[in-house]
Each structure stands twice: as structure tokens, then as C-alpha cells.
């Protein structure tokens, strides 16, 4: 097995297949811990985790908080309100101030894509991306893959359809990176207005036909429709969306018998999915929540003991101009 060296988890784009497998493998041993009578190990005793959330998210924050506590970390939650951002402290200032409290790991949720990258360049602490804009939500994708693997025994060769607002979904992007690296065949399905330009370059099949996305799939991952936000302009109404793209028992009649239904939560019942499906036998939605803790324990455990800053491959085109630094590094 590979050794984990990265101090941060910023996204699945820059993880190798082996690194993803290492997280899932590590999560397995923590999963066992979470089923014990005493659900706590001293793995990270003395370490401190800060949940730095620029967007409210009770679920993800709670999951990270529990994961940290079960590793015997101290945990601090900082909810940065939009108003205090307006007052002027920059992300980097906040990050450095948090770090001055001798924090080991910063778990960051932010509405701006790339914010964890900017933060990770400014601090020595580990940075774990808990969702940035439309960009990535790596721990969600890792827990989705963990759940799939424990349900179906493998990822390689599976057909997985991601359904919903692909354009504005960080869950979709992280799942695409992770699943394709592990050898799954990925289909994305959305109304044409919610399919972002160039998505096929990720190596996925693209369709706007919901029945086609369900047919032959081993699993479907149904995204939350954010009608109060971005999805709004693209689709006329919730009811209309449910009629055309909602996952219902009737729609699933033509599905493979063993189809697994996932959803990152919180569910909009009657928008992207009917209650019968959400609570039905194919649904693994609550298992995802449970597995999320083990996966996040694995992530915190791995990054806590690593030092290496992200090394990005240089963009493929053209001639290299840099005088020094064969690879582009965030470390300075």
C-alpha cells in the first residue's frame, strides 16, 4: 500500500487511485471503531481540529466534529458569518489567526471555489476541504465510494449515474474524479441547461434522458437541487423538475435489480426523489451518513501525520517558462 504524504485534502483531482484506495482502506478500520461500545480511539490525542465554516452546514460539520472527537482530537467550530467577512478580515487572515492558536487541522467549507487552495498556501496546518463553491467536496465523494464498495464489493467496472444539477455541484465533480480513477463508468444526467460546458472531457457519458441514466446503472447518486440558489434560473419549478427528473418507483421499474440509490443529503422529497425511493430498500442514504464518520476519521488521521504540500502537474500546453521549480509548488 502507498504511504500517505499529503498534508492537505483539497480535492480528488490530485489524488491517485492508490491514495483513494488507502483512504477507503483506512476508513474500514475506523468503521469498526464506530460500532464498538466505546467509540473512541486515541489516534490523534493532543491534536486540535478547527471546523472553519463560511457556509452553514450542520450535517457536514457534525460529521467532521464526531470524526475528530472519535480520534480524541479537540474540536473548535467557527462559523464565519457573511457579515464579518464583509467587515474585512480576509480568508488568509482568518486562517493565520486560527493557526496562531496552534491548530493542527483546518476543515474549511466555503462558498468560493478554490478557497481551500488559497488557505492551504497561507498556513502550515493541514487543510481539509469540506466543500468549496461548485468545485469539490472530496470527503462526500469518498464516503459515497466507500458506501458503494461496501454494498457492491467493488468500484471497478460499475456503472454509476450522477443525476441532478451537475453544473453547480461540487459533489458531482468530486465523484467524477474519484469514480473514474477507480475504474467506474460514470454517466452524468441533467437537464441540458444544468450540464456544464466541457463536462465530457472528464471522461463521462452525458445525457439528459433520465431513463437512459437509470437503465443499466449499478448505482445512481442523486444530487440535491438547490432551487433557492443556482438551479433556479435553469429550471422552471420544483414540480416540473420532479415530473421530468425525479426518481420514483415507476422510473426504477426498468432499473437493474440490485440498483443502489445514493443521495448526499439533505433530501428534497418530492423534488429530486420520492419518499418511497428515499426510504425504500435500494436506498443507502443513512448508511452514507454513518460511513461519513469513518471516512472523515480516515482523512483526518492521514493528513494529520503528513507534511507534503500539494504538487500540481504543470498544464500540458506550450513551453515551460519558469526559471526554477520543475514542478509548481504551493510551498514557498
Amino acid at each position, binding site marked *: 500500500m502507498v504511504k500517505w504524504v499529503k498534508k492537505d485534502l483539497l480535492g480528488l483531482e490530485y489524488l491517485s487511485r492508490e491514495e483513494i484506495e488507502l483512504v477507503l482502506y483506512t476508513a474500514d478500520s475506523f468503521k469498526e471503531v464506530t460500532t464498538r461500545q466505546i467509540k473512541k480511539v486515541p489516534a490523534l490525542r493532543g491534536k486540535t481540529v478547527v471546523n472553519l465554516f463560511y457556509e452553514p452546514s450542520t450535517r457536514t460539520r457534525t460529521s467532521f466534529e464526531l470524526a475528530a472527537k472519535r480520534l480524541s482530537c479537540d474540536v473548535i467550530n467557527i462559523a464565519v458569518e457573511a457579515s464579518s467577512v464583509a467587515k474585512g478580515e480576509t480568508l488568509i487572515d482568518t486562517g493565520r489567526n486560527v493557526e496562531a492558536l496552534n491548530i493542527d487541522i483546518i476543515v474549511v467549507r466555503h462558498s468560493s471555489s478554490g478557497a481551500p487552495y488559497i488557505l492551504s498556501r497561507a498556513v502550515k496546518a493541514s487543510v481539509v476541504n469540506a466543500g468549496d463553491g461548485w468545485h469539490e467536496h472530496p470527503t462526500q465523494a469518498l464516503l459515497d465510494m466507500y458506501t458503494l464498495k461496501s454494498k457492491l464489493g467493488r468500484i471497478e467496472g460499475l456503472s454509476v449515474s450522477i443525476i441532478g444539477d451537475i453544473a453547480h455541484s461540487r459533489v458531482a465533480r468530486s465523484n467524477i474524479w474519484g469514480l473514474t480513477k477507480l475504474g467506474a463508468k460514470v454517466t452524468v444526467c441533467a437537464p441540458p441547461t444544468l450540464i456544464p460546458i466541457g463536462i465530457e472531457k472528464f471522461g463521462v457519458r452525458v445525457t439528459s434522458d433520465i431513463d437512459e441514466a437509470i437503465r443499466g446503472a449499478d448505482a445512481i447518486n442523486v444530487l440535491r437541487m438547490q432551487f433557492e440558489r443556482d438551479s433556479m434560473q435553469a429550471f422552471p419549478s420544483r414540480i416540473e423538475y420532479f415530473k421530468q427528473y425525479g426518481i420514483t418507483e415507476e422510473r426504477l421499474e426498468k432499473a437493474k435489480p440490485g440498483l443502489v440509490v445514493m443521495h448526499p443529503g439533505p433530501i428534497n422529497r418530492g423534488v429530486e426523489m420520492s419518499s418511497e425511493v428515499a426510504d425504500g430498500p435500494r436506498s443507502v442514504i443513512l448508511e452514507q451518513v454513518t460511513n461519513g464518520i469513518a471516512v472523515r476519521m480516515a482523512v483526518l488521521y492521514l493528513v494529520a501525520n503528513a507534511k507534503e504540500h500539494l504538487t500540481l502537474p504543470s498544464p500540458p500546453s*506550450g513551453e515551460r517558462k519558469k526559471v526554477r521549480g520543475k514542478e509548481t509548488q504551493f510551498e514557498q
Partner: protein
Amino acid sequence: MNSSTNRYLIKNGRLIDPANKIDGEFDILIAGSKVESVGKGLKNNNAEVVDAKGKIVAPGLVDMHVHLREPGREDKETIETGTLAAIRGGITSVAAMPNLEPQAVDSAGMVKRVNDIAKAKARANVFVIGAITRNREGKELADIKGMKRHGAVAVSDDGASVQDERLLSAALKEAKKNSILVISHCDDRRISGQGVINEGFIATKLGLRGIPKSAEYEFVRRDIELAKKTGASLHIAHVSCKESCDIIRAAKRSHLAITAETAPHYFTLTEECCVTYDTNTKMNPPLRTKDDVAAIKKALADGVIDAIASDHAPHSLHDKDIEFDKAAFGIIGLETSLGLAAAELIGNKTLGWAGLIARMSSNPAKILGIKRGGLGKGATADIVIIDPDKEWIYEGASIASKSKNSPFIGWKLKGRVTEVFVNGTPHPPLSPKGRGEGEGKFLGASLCHT
């Protein structure tokens, strides 16, 4: 150098003076602020001799698209620091865009105010561009006539387009009546919206809002059409994509009075540079694709794009060192414009030196209608001397501009400016230490390659 003599003889250099169709070994004699004579083997005549052997002697470069920020945002740049940066880059004349904060240059009084500061502080010539609309709000026309009378060389709402077609049409008519150039920043906000980088796979991958190329070229098309109807002279600023080049090429074929510029970043960088969320790759218009870079080079080579201008846009660290979608657009460019152009265009044989000097000096001077960009007898002695093959490293610590927002820090550039004369007076472009010579130190601030 002893400037009290005020006579300089630049000898043995390769004089490139496209306006006078000169490219060869000629000496040039400066007396006071003027060129006294140009010829072979000129006699010393009490002048201080500047040996330019192996170097290029050319009319000082003219950068027709610069943001100097003064008066108003002296924290980002002043006329003094901006023109000092210009000198470093071999640029002896800049045209200053009117988008000052809080008050744009939209009146005769503001034109005069900028000119007064320039008179007192500027190291290079500053030509003022006035706004098209009052405070660039796109609602009512600015005093184009008054600004022209006080020396404005063009009008532009740069930073934005005049979205209202009827208002722009009225502006073009007013500009024609007053014989003043209109410079269009082409950006249809109905298309670009809240976008921050080029629309496409990279934007999708990074989860950032895209700006379609059509936001630019649809307005290039619209503005050219309006210029055709009104007969006004129109210049298209910072062309960034292939489609705009094609539209301008067609317009020039039908003999319209259209000119265009591009900026060095549009022929050196692509959207791929944005993948690290380095905000020094965020500009407006955004960096495009490899195909667009090729199209820009072709358009420069065949004269569809007339000029290279830096779009020097200084921003302080706190406007740049933040989230990508919240960061300011734009980069500084006065000190790197020539070095990038030489490395990228001459290095790849897109242009020869004569072609490059035309696009960076005589062409922009002609477009603006200023008496610069040529070195005939009696011309103003604005001169740059360039060591053409000298490579140098653009170092963060050496930047003369007050702001340091450049993606090119640590890059190896070509064509070193060794001497600059402004109005006959030498302005040393280098610090005594010989800034940036020899081995450079990579500062690691920028993360961008092509």
C-alpha cells in the same frame, strides 16, 4: 551621464524607425529635446557619445492602454511610479485610462488635473484618455468636446462597455465631430454576467463562472457596425480571442477606420494557467485557449492587430490575495511588455524586430494621433535602446510599480532595455545594482506556465 550638455550622439546601433521606413546602422544626434540629425558616421560635435553597438535603437515605446490610478487610488499606483515602471520597460509614452476612483476622467477639469500631476511628477509622457459617459456609468455622454480641447487623445469607458447601443452611437457621432478616437472595451455584460474566467472545461473543472468569448466578439461586431454607420474612428482594446480577430480582419478588408490592440498576456498565457486559482491569472477579458493564442499571434503578424498595449492594471495585495471569484481583475505589465513580446513573438518568429517596434511604438502613436513613435529630424527625442538577445529575469523585488500583481515574476524574458531618453533626457532604466541581470532567483509567487 552629464546631461548639462544636452547633446547625445547614439552611435553604431541598428536604428529601427518604422514611421520613417528605416532599419539599418545609423547614428542619431540629439540636441535638447529633439532629434537633430540621423545618418551614417555622424560627427561627435560636442555631444556625449552613447555606444549602441549590437543594440537596437528605436523610438521610445508607446503603451496606449495603462491604468495609472492617480488621482484617487495612490495606494495602488501613482503617475510617478507608473511612469517609472514604464521607463523600465522602454516605454516613453503612456495613454492613461479614465477609470479613476472615485471620480473618472470625464470632464475638461479632470483632464487638466491629470495633466497637471503628470507635468509635476511623470517620468514619461502621459496622454490622457477621457471617459465616454459621465463617471463611466453608461447613462449620459461625458463632455467629449471639452476633454478634447484640454488635450484628451481618445475617449473610452474602459473596464466596461457602453451597454446602451443608442448611447454609444451618439458618442461615436460626437467623437467624429470632435475628431477624437473612441476606444472600446468589448464586454457584453448580458453574456459575461458574473463570470471570472474563460468559459469551457477549465471553468467547469474549477467550478468558476465562465465568460463566453461571445461576450467580447459580439460587441466587437456591434461596435464596428456602429463605427461604420457613424464614420467614427474606432479602436478595439485588448483583443483576446480568435473570433474578434476574424471580425476585425473582415472590417479592415472593407477599409473601415478600425484599429486594434492586444496585451502580452493574450499571446503568452492560456486559461490553463488558472488551475491553481492564482488570482494573477484573472483578467478581463479572461485568458483564453491555445487556439486563441495562435490566432492573436497570426493577427499580430498580418497586421490585423495594430498594437501591443500592456493594460497595466495595478492592484494591491488585499485586492488580489483573496478568493478567486472575489479578486480584482487585471495585472501590471509596463515592465514586462517588451520582454514578453520579444521572448514570445520574436523568439517564435511571429514578428521581426521592425514589426515589433511598429506595434509597440509607431502604430499606437499613429492611432492616438500623438507626435511620437518616429525619429526623423526634428522629432521629439524619445528613444529606447535595447540589447535584443539579452535574457533577463523579472524579479518581484525589482518591480518599480507600486503593485506587484504579475503572473510573470520569475520568468525569463528577452530584450533588455539599456537606455531610455525622454524628450532628449536620459532616464536610466536600471538601478545602479544592475537589477535582474544574470542569475535570477525564483520567487515562487506565481504559479503560471503556458
